[in-house]
């Protein structure tokens, strides 16, 4: 470990095939964190983590504001009786689920979510889910997936969750478009209106807002992927006959246009309609970006790995805001899903996959970028060293996709600079009232 594996120089270095791969300490969340947005997205689902006090502490720390509500997630904390075999783990799960369901009889879909400890001691959650489904259907369906840190990084938790949903989707023979990946409701509604105006349909989304209204899938389903971290979900959907439409991700005016265009090229009929529907929106988005471009042009930016959104984000800041990405770190680089994105990255960007955080910090401090996009564990320590930072988590929790959010996305990169400028001490005005003005 920790030894830097030399850069894999592949035949054509102009296509960012050179990727720095390192292993060491990772400063990233585990897949359980996805529960924080997934439980808000699927409004009748409950997420029960089978794990430790650490899992529970992580979730409440990551979802700080949910203290205000009774959130639809919880942890079944494994204790020494379970480990010593004094308690039958499967019976314990039944008991805890019973307790939970008596509190929340409104739940239609229950996810048993595996964690590091439950994976290591090999708790069979598949068996538990099947047994409980048998007992609780038709009222409640029980599924399982793993959000453990030994298998998943941050947004991969959503990939695992959606993959678990795929076998449950009803089959169809109709030709339809399936948008894959959780988007903020406001963004999802905007896209659905656009598809409607474009005459593309029927359109479904995964995950759906209600667990009892899952989208259908079949051999004539085409997939438009909205998030870059859904490799397993796409694979599972392809196994059900669906085909992915290669596209960029809908970040920025350009990214959103190309994303929509990819779907149009498959489903569109009237040749002029795309320009008529998308053109004005794209222009409005581009106009809204102009001011931010003035502020951000030429700024050197360094991405620490976090959500796998890093590559499309770097493409956006480089092409639409004129920023200069130095290193773009990502936990995993799925070349397949990024096929339309990678060629759009500037050639001199260093792509890095995985992480050795101490070495990456060394590289970062050596280059002294104008902006570092990183997790909350690194942001304040870097700020204290005089480096401007943007918390990457905000890029996951804020609606940033689509035309109407392009400027919001740009503003996330611009605000740290604006704040720094405001706080930078300009000379204080002279004290006291100017002469002759006293009452």
């Amino acid at each position, binding site marked *: *470990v*920790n030894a830097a594996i030399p850069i894999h120089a592949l035949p054509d270095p102009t296509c960012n095939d050179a990727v720095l791969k390192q292993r*060491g*300490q*990772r*400063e*990233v*969340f*585990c897949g*359980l*964190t996805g529960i924080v947005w997934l439980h808000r997205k699927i409004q009748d689902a409950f997420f029960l983590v*089978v794990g*430790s*006090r*650490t899992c*529970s*502490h*992580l979730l*409440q*720390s*990551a979802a700080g504001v949910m*203290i*205000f509500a*009774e*959130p639809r997630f*919880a*942890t*079944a*904390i*494994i*204790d*020494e009786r*379970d*480990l010593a075999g004094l*308690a039958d*783990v499967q019976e314990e*799960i039944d*008991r*805890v689920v019973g307790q*939970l369901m008596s509190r929340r009889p409104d739940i239609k879909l229950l996810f048993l979510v595996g964690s*590091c*400890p439950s*994976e*290591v*001691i090999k708790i069979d959650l598949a068996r538990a889910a099947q047994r409980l489904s048998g007992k609780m259907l038709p009222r409640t369906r029980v599924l399982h997936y793993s959000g*453990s*840190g*030994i*298998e998943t*990084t941050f947004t991969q938790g959503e990939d695992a969750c959606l993959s678990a949903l795929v076998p449950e989707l009803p089959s169809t023979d109709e030709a339809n478009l399936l948008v894959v990946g959780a988007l903020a409701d406001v963004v999802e509604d905007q896209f659905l209106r656009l598809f409607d105006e474009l005459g593309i349909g029927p359109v479904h989304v995964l995950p759906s807002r209600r667990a009892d209204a899952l989208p259908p899938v079949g051999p004539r389903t085409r997939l438009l992927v909205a998030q870059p971290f859904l490799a397993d979900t796409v694979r599972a959907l392809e196994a059900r006959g669906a085909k992915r439409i290669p596209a960029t991700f809908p970040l920025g005016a350009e990214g959103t246009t190309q994303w929509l265009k990819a779907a149009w090229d498959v489903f569109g009929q009237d040749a002029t309609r795309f320009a008529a529907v998308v053109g004005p929106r794209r222009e409005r988005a581009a106009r809204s970006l102009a001011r931010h471009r003035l502020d951000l042009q030429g700024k050197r930016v360094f991405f620490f790995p976090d959500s796998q959104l890093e590559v499309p984000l770097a493409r956006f800041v480089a092409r639409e805001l004129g920023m200069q990405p130095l290193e773009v770190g990502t936990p995993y680089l799925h070349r397949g899903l990024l096929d339309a994105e990678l060629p759009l990255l500037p050639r001199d960007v260093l792509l890095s996959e995985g992480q050795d955080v*101490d070495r990456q910090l060394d590289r970062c401090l050596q280059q002294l970028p104008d902006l570092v996009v990183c*997790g*909350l*564990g*690194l*942001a*304040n*320590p870097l*700020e*204290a060293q005089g480096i401007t930072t943007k918390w990457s988590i905000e890029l996951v929790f804020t609606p940033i996709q689509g035309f109407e959010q392009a400027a919001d996305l740009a503003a996330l990169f611009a605000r740290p600079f604006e704040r720094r400028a405001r706080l930078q001490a300009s000379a204080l005005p002279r004290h006291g009232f100017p002469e002759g003005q006293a009452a």
Partner: protein
Amino acid sequence: MKLALWTYEGPTHVGAMRVATAMRDVHYVLHAPQGDTYADLLFTMIERRNKRPPVTYTTFQARDLGGDTAELFKTALHEAHERFAPSLMLVGASCTAELIQDDPGGLASSMGLPVPVVALDLPSYQRKENFGAAETFYRIVRTLCPATATSRQPRAVPGPKAARRPSCNLLGATALGFRHRDDVKELRSLIAELGVELNVVAPWEATPADVARIPQADFNVVMVPEVAHTAAQWLKREHGMPFTQTIPIGVKATWAFIDEVCGLAGIELTQDQRDKLQGMARSEWYAKSVDSTYLTGKRVFVFGDASHAVAAARVAAHEFGFTVVGLGTYSREFAREVREAAAEFGVEPLITDDHLEVEDQVRALQPELVLGTQMERHIAKRLGVPCAVISAPMHVQDFPARHAPQMGFEGANVLFDTWVHPLMMGLEEHLLHMFREDFEFHGDAQASHLPATATPNTAVADKPAVEPNATPALAGAAAQVAAQVAAPATVHAAQAAAPITAPGWADDAQRELAKIPFFVRGKARRNTERYAVERGMSLITLETLYDAKAHYAS
């Protein structure tokens, strides 16, 4: 397995991190999968620390489990030592690594590092954060302060004629502790004021070399028993060092603490010294001044870690004149102390780490003020009860920019302000509600300072029995009739939970009820209805209302 929607304490290794992060020149190598690094942001975001915690996580993955995770640990330890060059290393496992049994302590000792390595064995599936902190501090002290054949001898009290000034250590303050930063500052100056030398503060900003000097002092001041009690007991046994028992929260406890410290130091304060200290205790006079009369008997519910909860209950009862109606803690390690304190107030102690149980209790007891953690603040907010935060778990709001200690005389001043303020705000809110229904100041009325226009006020039938321009104190006086109906000494949970079929209200009783000030009207209604239900009455008359009032007043 236990169903948990929220927990008061984190896992044991977070307790160890709090100790490591508080210290200097220490590095902690934690055998852990990716994701456990979330704990870093507790320190960098909640406490706004400007450095990463001194922790290296080995970050093992599923594919390593079949291979050599032990080797991974050794490499991480080796590299962390090279990079950070600490003078003490801690090694341990998080919950997942505990299961794979790589034995970080054994692996570390096989590597022969040139610095002391403390192996932490923190059972993640049985214990919690505070245990982790206490155990870590104890292990560090034990490693750095070896006992000798002579060190166990009990020490002589230094006394004023000793060759050097008596000295003590201040133990227990950690990173991510409730006001530890400010309490250290406060106690540091108090101890100096007493003429006692402060030898070492630990773990707060202590180096391993500082910790090694702990036995040079005459005695220990235990500021945070949750963290330092285990170490202090060991230092007493192995180094003959006595330690303080009093937590100096509140004026009375601060004086008791001063007497305890003076006793251990063998010194006596001059009258001048006492007068000077007394002058700092503003909260005592504030509580006596007549505007505080309205605090009398306010029903307060207290929940938190053991030392803050017990101290808060005593301050509430004996310094501010509140009535403690409930007391509880999530610290099972100190359940005995909390039970004893609860007995002082004649209440049932609540020992639980389930916030839903705490919420049920608050609901049932209907306190007028909640002193608790951030969770109780949210519970109180939902129930519309004023609240102040007195204890961890930590929240970004618990790290104020200003100096805001809990301990010592200035700490007592802070308590007065921070507990009384929400009550004031609560009263203001009630007055706003009250005047909203007033004949003169109701919602549709024109503001009274504007010139009159055509619309005359229509008299409201159920005007409250308070003059519209009443000050809070006067409103309080007018409310006394109602308050007697409204304030039985205790409401038992069982009674509150009993199903009540509300009897009907006769018109005259309903009108009389409407005259009772808004802020006690709800309680008056509930008590009267309960009185009626208990007597099997189906209609509440004017007489029933006053019967109930007399019943609860007696």
